[in-house]
Every structure is written in structure tokens, then in C-alpha cells.
């Protein structure tokens, strides 16, 4: 990856000359023989050199141009904000992702949350579901209903949707690999409830490509994963234009230790893979881009890396849409971001320290522009189930940043800082260079199929772990200010065997009483569509309505697509 060696300061610049004089007459003598406390000073993730001082000469050296690099809020290239009035009209939407219990308890929990005045919910599924298995598959033993709701058939969703849909306006469904099946089940369940899809926003995350790079909840080989994700995007654009067909969860690359440049480059290259695939289906860029511009972005503890990343993200998206695709509509050129402090900065040790970390990271999010929404993790996240107190503090952190610090009272207040503009521009340039590298390989799909992205992340994971083990990065509670007497208790979910057995019994009972020949015929249509390249959503819809199970439909696609298995190369190990 391209790493700047530090801006070259032209000696002819009067400020540069003054800086050289200051170095010789003031700073040098004052330092004397004492070494600096770090050698070298570098940013946390990128490890880019940090100069002792930034001046207008640095901006000259990188060719900083106010109009071209920043412009005005709500106008190209959107570096300062995608919102013409920043956060002076409204704050960002303050959200929180919390666990949702499991199985049929979800409806109860969702009703409670709607009663608290929330109008949007996030539905997460267990690992059996997201990996495309039914609850009674032996391979998922112990995972049923654990990480989210168990979803075997339309019956489960009918029970989960026992909700006041007059209050629920927005539902995000977090399911990637089996997305056509999941989308079909939700459409069928909404139909059964008599919900008008125009009055309701379904947002499917549908982010399969990132799963191959780090999270691992994939089923089929990447080309087929991309194809069925594209089917969902196309289906939604054509049939439910008010819905949201994808989120690029850059916030999954970040905990996998993507540095800010890799994060921008890989998540935008991945967005391009989806865009290219949808454009091939005969839609135009100004129609498509506003559907594929939703990103979730984490901010880590290096304050300036965080702020600059958010600023560079906005500009890189705008430039990419304009320069690569010739997009012209503002909706296509504007990225939509949900920002969040990262969980990987939080420690298991001395958990109250995490409140300070969250406050600092949330401030960086706000100073970087916050985006449409912000979500805050909880200070006891590393321990397991969040305590009520942690949930209250999590919500309060965003309100403290919003109402007490004044950081959102003017738009992009750090603009013009010699350091911030230098770092923002360096990130933009390096991200574009890395993106070009990926495009030269044939795009994100190829970079995933060859393991390039996985290996790049694997190296970062190893190097940054070494930084902590060898003490180059000080982390309070982990390798600095540690306490010997500290008990490191981890709460861990215990298997709820009764729940799992009940779910297994239910799905087996369903299979015994449905119209099996009709189900078999519907599954054959799923295989046909998989073979012919027809959109997968309609045959999945037909199958789920006949109560074909989630795992059966996923298996029908396995029959045609095969399964993805990753070796060391493809896992970056």
C-alpha cells in the first residue's frame, strides 16, 4: 500500500523558511539532548509519520485547493458535509443496536421497543440462519437462537411480525448469504399481515462480499454470492423503490483491522462491484447509486485518523461516482453514512474506562460529520449481555456530545486545520491508489477470489497485535496501567437446550404437514432459476409461501452453485 513519506516542504516557501528557522533556533535547542517520547511518531492504524508541526506550507506541498478539495456543504465534493446545513437543523439520528432475545421472543421485545417510541428496528438472526441451515441440521448444534432469531420458515416470521405495523416504519434485516430467501420471507410475511409495502421501509443489509473478506458467514462461491445479492438489489429497485437494498458495512472491515485507507478502498471497490452488476441489468448510474450509497463506518481511538477518514470517505465516494461512472444527480454523488465508535477499542479490563473511550470516539464521529445516524456500543460490551446501566450511559454519550460540547454547532469545524487537511488528502490519495490496484486486478470480486484483500487484512491483524504485545501501542488496562488483582470474568451464553429442541421439533412438524409435492416443485424452480440466471427472488417467494424451509431453499441453491470453502490463502492466514 502507498504510504506517504511525509510532505516535502518547498524551501522557497516563506513559511517553510520560517519553519526551518524555528527548528534551528527554537525547537532544536529546547529539545537539547533529550529524545522524544516516541520514535517514530505515527498514526495508530496507518502508522503514517506525524510531523511535530503542520503549517500552511504543508497544504501548499500537497497542492491543497479549497474549492476543489472541500467546496461547500451539500455540494460536490461533499468533503465538508453532504448536508447543506450540517447538523444545525437536526442532529444525526441517535440509535442503538442491542440484542433482541431469540426465537419467538423477538416480537415481545420489538413491541416493547416500539412502546419506548422507537419506530425502527433491527432484526438479527442466529448463525444457523445466516449460514443457510435449518435448526435441525446437525452442523448447527448449539447455535439455534443464540446470536439472534432462529428462522426456519415463514411461520417463524409470521410470529415475529405480531407487531403494531402502524408504529413500525423501518426494519433492517441483517442477513447476507441467504438474502433472496430472507427477502422473500419478509415480503411474504408483510403480505400476510396486510402491510402496504409503500408505507414501510425494509432495509436489507445484503452485504455478502465483505463476508468473504472477514466475517465468514458465506455459503456459495463469491461470483454466485454477488449474483444473488444483485438479484435482490434489482428486485427492490424495480418493485419496492422506497426500500433499501444494501448496506456496505465498512464497520466489519474495521474490526478485522482494515486501516482507514484499506477500509475506504475496499468498501468502495466492493460498492462498485454491486453497482457494475446492477448496471449490467439495464439500470443507469443516477438511478442505481442512490441505492448503493449506504455505509456503516466505525471510528477508532486515533482521533484524527477517525475524523479524516469520515471526511475522505465522503469525497472519495463523490469522486468515484463522478469520475468512474459519470453520475450527475446529487443523490448519486452523496454518500449516506451511519457512524459508530468501534467496539475493538473497548477493553474487557477496567470496563468503566470504556465510557471515556466511547465519549472520545463519539466526539470524533460528530466532528467528522456524524452522518445520517450514529450508534454507540456499550461499555460492558466485551463482557456479554449489556446491563441496563450500560444502555443508559450509551444513549447519554451521544446526547452529551450533541448538546454539551458544541462540536455540531458549526459545519465541519476542523476544516482548514493544517494537520486535518493534510491527513484527509493523504488518505484520499492513498485510498484511490489502493482502489486503482483493486480495479486493475479486475475489481473487488477478483481481489476476493484471489485472496488479495483477505491477505492484506491478515497482515494488518498480525502487525497490529504485535504493536500491542511489544508495547509500541499503549492500551490502558491491557498493556499499560494494568492491575494484577483484576479478575477477568467473562460471561458467556449458556446453551438453551430446551429452546433448541423446541425449534427443531417445530420445523420437523412443519415438514410433516405441508404439501410436499408442491414444495418439491417449488424447490426445482429455485434450482432452475439458479441455473438460468433468472432473478432468484420470485422463485424463492413462491417456495417460502408453500413453507419450504430456509435451509431447503439454501440447499437448492447449493445444488447448483456449490459451496465456498476457504483455505489459508483465501483466509489471509
Amino acid at each position, binding site marked *: 500500500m502507498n504510504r506517504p513519506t511525509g510532505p516535502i516542504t518547498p524551501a522557497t516557501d516563506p513559511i517553510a523558511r520560517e519553519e526551518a528557522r524555528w527548528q534551528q533556533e527554537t525547537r532544536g535547542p529546547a529539545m537539547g539532548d533529550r529524545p522524544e517520547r516516541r520514535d517514530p511518531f505515527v498514526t495508530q492504524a496507518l502508522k503514517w509519520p506525524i510531523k511535530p508541526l503542520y503549517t500552511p506550507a504543508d497544504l501548499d506541498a500537497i497542492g491543497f485547493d479549497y474549492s476543489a478539495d472541500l467546496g461547500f456543504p451539500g455540494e460536490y465534493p461533499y468533503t465538508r458535509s453532504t448536508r447543506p446545513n450540517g447538523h444545525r437543523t437536526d442532529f444525526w439520528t441517535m440509535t442503538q443496536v442491542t440484542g433482541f432475545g431469540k426465537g419467538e421472543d423477538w416480537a415481545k421485545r420489538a413491541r416493547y421497543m416500539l412502546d419506548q417510541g422507537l419506530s425502527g428496528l433491527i432484526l438479527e438472526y442466529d*448463525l444457523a440462519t445466516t449460514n443457510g441451515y435449518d435448526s435441525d441440521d446437525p452442523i448447527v448444534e448449539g447455535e439455534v437462537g*443464540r446470536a439472534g432469531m432462529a428462522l426456519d420458515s415463514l411461520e417463524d416470521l409470521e410470529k415475529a411480525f405480531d407487531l403494531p405495523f402502524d408504529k413500525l416504519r423501518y426494519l433492517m434485516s441483517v442477513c447476507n448469504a441467504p438474502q433472496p430467501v430472507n427477502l422473500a420471507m419478509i415480503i411474504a410475511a408483510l403480505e400476510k399481515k396486510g402491510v402496504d409495502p409503500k408505507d414501510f421501509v425494509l432495509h436489507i443489509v445484503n452485504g455478502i462480499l465483505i463476508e468473504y473478506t472477514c466475517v*465468514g458467514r458465506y455459503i456459495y462461491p463469491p461470483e454466485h454470492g454477488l449474483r444473488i445479492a444483485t438479484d435482490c438489489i434489482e428486485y427492490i429497485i424495480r418493485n419496492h423503490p422506497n426500500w433499501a437494498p444494501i448496506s456496505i458495512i465498512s464497520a466489519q472491515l474495521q474490526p*478485522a483491522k482494515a486501516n482507514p485507507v484499506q477500509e475506504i478502498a475496499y468498501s468502495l471497490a466492493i460498492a462498485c462491484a454491486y453497482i457494475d452488476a446492477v448496471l449490467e441489468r439495464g439500470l443507469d448510474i443516477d438511478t442505481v447509486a442512490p441505492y448503493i450509497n449506504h455505509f456503516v463506518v466505525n471510528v477508532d481511538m486515533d482521533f484524527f485518523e477517525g475524523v479524516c477518514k469520515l471526511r475522505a470517505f465522503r469525497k472519495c465516494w463523490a469522486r468515484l461516482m463522478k469520475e468512474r461512472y459519470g453520475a450527475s444527480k446529487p443523490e448519486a454523488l452523496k454518500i449516506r453514512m451511519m457512524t459508530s465508535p468501534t467496539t475493538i477499542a473497548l477493553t474487557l479490563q477496567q470496563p468503566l474506562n470504556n465510557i471515556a473511550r466511547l465519549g472520545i470516539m463519539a466526539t470524533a464521529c460528530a466532528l467528522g460529520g456524524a452522518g445520517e445516524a450514529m450508534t454507540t456500543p456499550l461499555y460492558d460490551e466485551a463482557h456479554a449481555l449489556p446491563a441496563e446501566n450500560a444502555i443508559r450511559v450509551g444513549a447519554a454519550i451521544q446526547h452529551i456530545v450533541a448538546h454539551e460540547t458544541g462540536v455540531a454547532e458549526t459545519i465541519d469545524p476542523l476544516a482548514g486545520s493544517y494537520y486535518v487537511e493534510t491527513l484527509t488528502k493523504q488518505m484520499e490519495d492513498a485510498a484511490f491508489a489502493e482502489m486503482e490496484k483493486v480495479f486493475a486486478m479486475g475489481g473487488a470480486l477478483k481481489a476476493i477470489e484471489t485472496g488479495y484483500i483477505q491477505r492484506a*487484512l491478515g497482515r494488518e*491483524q*498480525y502487525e497490529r497485535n504485535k504493536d500491542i*504485545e511489544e508495547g509500541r501501542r499503549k492500551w490502558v488496562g491491557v498493556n499499560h496501567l494494568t492491575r494484577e488483582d483484576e479478575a477477568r470474568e467473562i460471561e458467556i451464553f449458556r446453551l438453551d437446550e430446551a429452546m433448541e429442541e423446541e425449534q427443531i421439533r417445530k420445523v420437523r412438524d412443519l415438514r410433516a404437514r405441508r404439501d410436499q409435492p408442491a414444495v418439491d416443485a417449488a424447490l426445482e424452480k429455485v434450482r432452475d432459476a439458479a441455473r438460468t440466471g433468472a432473478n432468484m427472488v420470485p422463485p424463492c417467494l413462491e417456495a417460502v409461501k408453500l413453507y419450504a424451509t430456509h435451509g431447503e431453499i439454501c440447499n437448492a441453491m447449493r445444488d447448483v452453485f456449490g459451496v465456498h470453502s476457504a483455505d489459508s490463502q483465501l483466509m489471509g*492466514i
Partner: protein
Amino acid sequence: MTTFKRPLRVLLAKLGMDTHTVGVTVIGHALREAGMEVIFTGLKQTPEMVCAAAVQEDVDVVGISTLSAGHTRSLPKLARLLREAGAGDKLLVAGGVIPEEDKPILEQAGVDRIFTMGSDTRDIVAYLESWWAQRLAEDAA
């Protein structure tokens, strides 16, 4: 520094549906940097699959990364399968989120060593190297 007749061969694997790989990736790099041969099975493995891979690849060490609650079932099962396959002499180590109270159960079932969260990779390398040196010494004797 100890020199070995041949590099230690290590199979790294993840059992079950849990797919978090940062830990296993860091370990893989650290072992390789220490001169060991590292083979990774990929994700979503059953104990049967891991046992078959361990035998086929003729590894010395089987390392399991687990962040899922299924470890009290899957690890003892893997230890039993390895013994049944005549591969009980391989070192079986596990790491990840493993509560203290589960450690005796796993150790009794045949897991040789458990490294919990926050373990230093240098300690893991040192442990494997000393086990290997001892094994070679026993073989030579």
C-alpha cells in the same frame, strides 16, 4: 535458540458456526513467523472434518479457535475422535472464549492446553516449541 529436525506442523481449525477469524489469523501468522508449518481448515468445521484433516495432513499439533458456546461438546468429541483414529499423540490445544469453569472439563476430556483471550502469541509459540523439543527428545531416547 533451539533447532529442530523438521518444522512443527500445526493444523488450525474453527469448529461450528462461529466465524470470527482475527484470533486464528494472528496465531497463524505468529506460528509461521516462528518457523512452523501452518495449515488452516477453513470455517464451519465439524469435529469429524478436523480429525480427518489432522490425520491426512499428518500434523503434530491441532489448534482449535473457539468463540462459540459449543466447545464443551465439540472439543471432547474431537479429542475422542483423534484417539479413535490412532492420533491421540498429537498435541490438542484450544484458544478463544473459554470460561474458567469449563477448563477442567476440557482438560479431562483430552485437551492438552487452553489459551484464553489476551494470551500473548510469544507464550503460545514458546509452549509449542518446548513441547516439540521434549517430544523429539523422547523419540530420540
